[in-house]
């Protein structure tokens, strides 16, 4: 494991067997199929992709909310996949999560103060009622809410404020990594910017690592240091933000970026992909993207391309197209 990596995911797989129907072989949904990446301290890695690409399952598997089918997850020198519940519980204070729908993640019957005190007490972060109350107040202020919020209930807050409470709760056990699973997707545009700014400033202040799972490329582009693009359970391209966004190499990444509607009058030729994402039950043979790829050729139908570094070891692309061709078509 490399020096600086806080999280290292190695060949992670998560397969869901489907109920047996008839006599044929049992079908398996390969939601995550051999995914590897690292997240350094203080870094944001974003996982982007469309619905069904496996990005949320990946997040859940990394968190240990669901056991992986194969592969390993290393966190700060500890192997955390397959840990027994008590050990997992202890190490979990170091990696927390924020989900998309804050109303579904907050108990409607608990006061905000109690919601925030729970992790403080469970993980033994602070001792004594007074100290807990003081820390709850600090956490609320950190996320831009008044201390008085602690006596109120979740339903008394708006969507953006509730997401702030979820962030405060995630920060309570002083984690070093937070997984954000579509954490700003359900928020209104004007509130989304507030939460994105809050996450960015908290990261800078606390040196947090973020695993930011999102389908919103503009938000990802703003917040992230590195990007991994997923398609049908596999990573097709991973690299530094500037490289992936400004000079995408995989045809899927290029189509995804060109599909984002532009507001500032930038003109770019749009690559419109035909058809829909195929089912992850029987992903296409060869390259999983070949059924929609505008550049597919014979080899793509039979041989699955492996991730290989292009230009710099910090950027990996899984595509059979020669690098020169890709460059030519980027510039053309």
């Amino acid at each position, binding site marked *: 494991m490399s020096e600086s990596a806080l999280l290292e995911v190695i060949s992670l797989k998560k397969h869901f067997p489907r109920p047996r129907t008839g006599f044929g072989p049992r079908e398996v949904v390969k939601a995550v199929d051999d995914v590897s990446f690292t997240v350094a301290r203080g870094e944001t890695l974003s996982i982007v992709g469309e619905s069904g690409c496996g990005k949320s399952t990946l997040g859940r598997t990394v968190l240990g909310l669901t056991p992986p089918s194969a592969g390993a997850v290393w966190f700060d020198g500890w192997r955390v996949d397959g840990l027994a519940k008590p050990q997992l519980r202890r190490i979990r204070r170091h990696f927390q999560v924020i989900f998309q729908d804050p109303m579904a993640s907050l108990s409607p019957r608990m006061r905000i103060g109690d919601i925030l005190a729970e992790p403080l007490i469970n993980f033994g972060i602070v001792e004594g009622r007074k100290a807990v109350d003081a820390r709850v107040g600090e956490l609320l202020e950190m996320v831009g809410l008044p201390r008085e919020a602690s006596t109120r209930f979740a339903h008394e807050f708006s969507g953006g404020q509730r997401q702030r409470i979820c962030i405060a709760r995630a920060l309570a056990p002083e984690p070093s990594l937070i997984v954000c699973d579509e954490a700003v997707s359900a928020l209104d*545009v004007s509130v989304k910017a507030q939460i994105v700014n809050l996450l960015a400033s908290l990261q800078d202040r606390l040196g947090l690592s973020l695993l930011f799972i999102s389908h919103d490329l503009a938000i990802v582009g703003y917040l992230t240091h590195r990007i991994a693009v997923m398609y049908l359970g596999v990573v097709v391209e991973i690299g530094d933000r500037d490289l992936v966004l400004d000079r995408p190499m995989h045809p899927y990444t290029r189509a995804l970026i060109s*599909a984002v509607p532009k507001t500032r009058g930038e003109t770019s030729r749009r690559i419109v992909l035909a058809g829909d994402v195929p089912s992850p039950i029987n992903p296409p043979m060869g390259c999983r993207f070949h059924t929609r790829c505008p550049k597919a050729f014979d080899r793509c139908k039979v041989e699955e391309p492996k991730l290989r570094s292009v230009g710099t070891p910090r950027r990996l692309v899984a595509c059979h197209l020669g690098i020169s061709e890709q460059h030519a078509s980027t510039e053309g």
Partner: protein
Amino acid sequence: MNPVLEVHDLDVSFDTSVGSLRVVRGVSFSVGAAETVAIVGESGSGKSVTALSLMRLHDPDKTKISGSIKFKGTELLTLPEARMRTVRGNEIGMIFQEPMSSLNPLMPIGDQIAEAVLLHHDKSRAEARRRALDLLVQIGIADPQRRMREYPHQLSGGMRQRVMIAMAMACDPEILIADEPTTALDVTVQAQILGLMRDLKTRTGSSIVIITHDLGVVAELADRVVIMYAGVKVEEGTIAEIFSQPAHPYTVGLLGSIPSLGCSRSGGPLTEIPGQVPSPSRVAVGCSFAARCGLTSSICLEIEPRLENVSPRHGVACHHKIRTPVA
């Protein structure tokens, strides 16, 4: 040229257990022939309520609508229900955000499209089915013969939305109302649907009213934009005017809070609009945006600003209009 649709001083309130909620307040706009107008706002802005009012789809027992909605000179708000039914679907088509809840799960999609044709036109079943098949071809569905016989659950989200569009276009309506048509779709599929809508618009020459919160979609599709906030129209103008010279602080904030693709943290934090979208139960005196606005002065808290034109087609309801220097 006379506008196809003219909405004047539209006011919508709902009777609820907590009293009457006024969710749309005095909204006026018009849609010209072959024009695409986008109504933009966040949740609670009243944009969807406005769209449903155009079709008179609110529960008449619980809703009070006043003002005027004229479709080619005919007042829709006072039209008898029987006449209104011939307008819906036939002259004004509508598509919604979630196609799965708008389609009948027990009926093959070919029959559903044909039904729309049969309802409004004196045609035989066979003719209606031919029209349905023709529409499926037009909206770019592969293998339409087979798809005709399939049920909604057998289609993907993007294909279902295409079917919704086919149904809405079945009777060649003069206006298509699209309420968040791409919000539930993935970006690559959204790009397909936006392309299809642009294509249909040029081919059929129908007007489109698109309701959305996504300014990117607006930039792709619309000719003119109406910005709504808390039930009020705060700004209106052509695409170019709204995007390059927004004059209302809310519009400016909205545009600033969406990062464009090239934008990163090194460029500083995103523009925030502080605070939250107000709830319609709280009736504000003065400007409804005053509580979140950086330019608020005493006049904003007392007098509700009226829409004033800053250029012939660009109107703003603000006491402190922002003059963006033309870059």
